[in-house]
């Protein structure tokens, strides 16, 4: 066999392995979709085994779950929580990261150790006191409770400290000679240069908020005040063995994020890859 033919055969084998893997990755999603459109009796029929929904596709699974769980509210709650956390995290982390990365001030090292401390301990250690604070303020089951632990970010601060440190000094020095204040140098000159870090932290913060289940379960037990992730836990408990409806609910919870991911996949993958396994 010639060299070219051998290369082609190798590439073929590689593709076969990767395609089998890809089928394994997609199968659960496919099964979720197929189940969501079946009737309950089709989903649990033993003999015959229905792979595809038979007859009409059962869209009513979606409408029933949508109505009984007020999915519109869940989408709104989740979206507002994500948006507020992203805004707050970006605002505070860029400023703080700039100060730690670019400015000189007494106590810098000691203050930065607070940032490092937060990153080193497991996050579960914060949860009970955070819950008690929200509870004492009588703010359980509010949008505030959902956003609360995510208003500042140690990881984001660290990320931006690195991002600002890696930028060249010259531009900023020129701006200083031209009479720019610290704030102008930060907001007009340096910040626009950290675009990829902004995108990464934005995506990371949004995804973290969207995926987190324990916090909303604790502070927002009211099904109309909670997020998609936490509502799914309740949904599984309530609809029990009605698998088509459970799958319809799960599908509705992941579809919007999936669409955004498919559009911005490059930014998503880069953003998550820099998160250091915290997702």
């Amino acid at each position, binding site marked *: 066999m010639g060299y070219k033919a051998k290369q082609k055969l190798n590439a073929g084998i590689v593709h076969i392995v990767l395609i089998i893997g890809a089928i394994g990755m997609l199968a659960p999603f496919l099964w979720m979709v197929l189940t969501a459109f079946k009737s309950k009796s089709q989903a649990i029929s033993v003999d015959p085994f229905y792979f595809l929904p038979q007859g009409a596709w059962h869209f009513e699974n979606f409408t029933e779950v949508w109505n009984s769980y007020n999915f519109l509210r869940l989408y709104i709650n989740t979206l507002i929580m994500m948006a507020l956390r992203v805004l707050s995290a970006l605002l505070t982390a860029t400023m703080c990261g700039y100060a730690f990365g670019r400015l000189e001030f007494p106590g810098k090292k000691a203050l930065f150790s607070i940032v490092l*401390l937060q990153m080193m301990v497991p996050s579960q250690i914060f949860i009970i006191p955070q819950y008690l604070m929200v509870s004492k303020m009588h703010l359980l089951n509010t949008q505030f409770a959902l956003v609360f632990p995510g208003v500042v970010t140690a990881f984001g601060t660290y990320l931006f400290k690195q991002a600002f440190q890696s930028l060249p000094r010259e531009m900023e020095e020129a701006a200083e000679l031209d009479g720019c204040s610290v704030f102008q140098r930060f907001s007009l000159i340096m910040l626009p240069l950290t675009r990829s870090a902004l995108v990464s932290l934005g995506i990371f913060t949004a995804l973290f908020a969207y995926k987190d*289940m324990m916090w909303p379960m604790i502070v927002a037990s009211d099904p109309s005040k909670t997020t998609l992730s936490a509502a799914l836990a309740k949904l599984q408990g309530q609809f029990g063995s009605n698998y088509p409806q459970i799958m319809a609910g799960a599908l509705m919870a992941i579809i919007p994020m999936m669409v955004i991911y498919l559009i911005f996949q490059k930014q998503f993958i880069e953003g998550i890859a820099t998160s250091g396994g915290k*997702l």
Partner: protein
Amino acid sequence: MKKKLFPSPRAWKEAKAAYLFVAPTLIGLLILNFYPIISTFYLSFCKTGDFGLNNTFAGLVNYARLIRDPDIPQSLLNTFRYALVQVSFSISLSLVLAVLVNRKMRAVSVYRTIYFLPMICAPAAIAMVWRWMFNSDFGLLNKLLGTHISWTTNPNTAWLCVAVVGIWSSLGYNMVLLLGGLQDIPKDYYEAAAIDGASGIDAFFHVTIPLLSPTLFFIIQTGIIGALQLFDLPYMIIDESSRAMGTVKSVTYLFYQHSFMKGERGYGSAIVIFMMLVIALITWLIQRTEKRWVHYN
């Protein structure tokens, strides 16, 4: 002579701006993270009254209970087993995937997009579909295999179910990081190895693995720390009342159960302090191995 705190007006101006810039984050971290660490530590020495109210100082009561609680060694064992299996399988499989994908072909980004998909999904939704596939009577898995195994309720298989979902979920993430590491290895190294007569497998173990070791070390360490905090998957996949829960529940699950289902925040705090110490110890052990096998250039 004592060094002046602010040698010039300019330095004072810069410091003033800096304090203003760090204030929001640091005040937030103090309230949301620093105070809670101290508070959790204090709570771990308290007895919690009815309805989770009226904490009274009780010394080492919670820690004495922790030492005697058979759930603690069991949940530690469950968590370690999960971490070991999940991290080792996920990283080996994703290493194979990364090596396969690391070549000139157009479909790379398609594969990457597909393998990465679970990372952007709510773990609750992922757990739900897997639980349905694992269903003993009507699940896809038993139908395809022609078996009737109670995957998620049998104590011997339930932990495997959770591990499989954990591996499946993390393949894409590890693959992306390893692929990045592979692409940083200069091609000359392989050419030099080939000239010396090294086979593909020799090159893999003597060129790829050593040069990839910083990336490998990073994903092993962060992977293990993440796996030690396992919660969502057992919570969603295994029934709370199932006897299989005993062999699956993680330390974080135990923490959640005591703190928020039973309202025993004092004991919950002791569990989470204990967990922090365990994670710190494991992290230290992992870092001690670093010098032996990780090569930084």
